[in-house]
C-alpha cells in the first residue's frame, strides 16, 4: 500500500492532459439521458463539464487510480465533485485540458477504517487562453490493508 508520505508526494503531480470538445449530438444524448429540455443555443448542459473534464485528463480512470497506488478492485468511489464556470461550457469549441493533484490526505473513520481522499483540479482553457471551467473531483480510496492509527 502507498505510504502516507508517498500519498502526500502526489500533490502537484500533473496528468498528461489533452483536449475536450462537446459535440452538439453528445449534449443532446446527455439531455435525453437526464430528461432535460433543450438548453440555451450553443451551450452545453452543465453536467457535461464532468464528461469533458474526465475525458481530457489524458489517462483512463484505471491509470488515474494507479497514480495513487490503487485500482478499481480496491473499490474507489467518487466522494465529491465540484465545478466553477468562469464562462459557460460551449458546444463545438476546442478546450485545452490540464489536470493536477490538488490535495491528498489519509483519514481514518470509525466504521470505514483507513481511506485516502484525493482531489484533482481539472481546468478547461478556451481558445482565448483563459480558464473557462474548473472541475474538482474528489476520489475516495479505501485502504483496507492498512492498520488504523
Amino acid at each position: 500500500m502507498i505510504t502516507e508520505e508517498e500519498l502526500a508526494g502526489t500533490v502537484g503531480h500533473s496528468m498528461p492532459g489533452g483536449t475536450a470538445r462537446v459535440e452538439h449530438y453528445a449534449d443532446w444524448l446527455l439531455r435525453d439521458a437526464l430528461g432535460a429540455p433543450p438548453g440555451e443555443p450553443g451551450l452545453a448542459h452543465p453536467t457535461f463539464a464532468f464528461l469533458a473534464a474526465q475525458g481530457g485528463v489524458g489517462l483512463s480512470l484505471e491509470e488515474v487510480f494507479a497514480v495513487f497506488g490503487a485500482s478499481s478492485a480496491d473499490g474507489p468511489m467518487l466522494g465529491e465533485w465540484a465545478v466553477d464556470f468562469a464562462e459557460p461550457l460551449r458546444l463545438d469549441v476546442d478546450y485545452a485540458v490540464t489536470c493536477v493533484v490538488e490535495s491528498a490526505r489519509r483519514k481514518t473513520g470509525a466504521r470505514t477504517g483507513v481511506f485516502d481522499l484525493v482531489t484533482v483540479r481539472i481546468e478547461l482553457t478556451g481558445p482565448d487562453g483563459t480558464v473557462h471551467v474548473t472541475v474538482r473531483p474528489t476520489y475516495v480510496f479505501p485502504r483496507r490493508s492498512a492498520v488504523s492509527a
Partner: protein
Amino acid sequence: MRVGDLLPERVVESVDPEKMKIAAALLRDPNMIHLDPAVTEKLGMGSRVVNQGPLNLGYIHTLLEEYGRVVASRFRFHGNVFAGDRVVAGGRVTAVDGDLVDYEVWLDVTGGARAVSGTVRIRRAR
C-alpha cells in the same frame, strides 16, 4: 426569489437502465455495475444496475437550469441510485446577491435515503 424559498421538485418516476447505457458510452465508463444486473448481483449489490453519479447530479443541474445559468456547484455523493428507483431533485434558496442565487440542493430516493447533497450558484436569466 427569497431566502428559504423551495424550488418545485423535479421527479424522475423510474430511473431507466437504458439511459445508463447512453451515459456509459458518453463517459467511456467500463464499470459493468451500470450495465449488467448479473454483475451487481455478483457483487452483493442486488439485482438492479447502478445509476452513474454524473446522472444523479445531472438531475439537480437540470432542475436549476430552468432558473438560470449554473456558475458553480458542489456535490457530495452519499449513496447509490438503482434502476427503477423514483428520485426527487430539490433545492432551497440560501442567498440572493443581485442576479446570483445560491441554493442548497439534494437528490432523494423515494422510500430510501439521500443520494446527493450540495450547493449550486446560478446567475438568473434576465
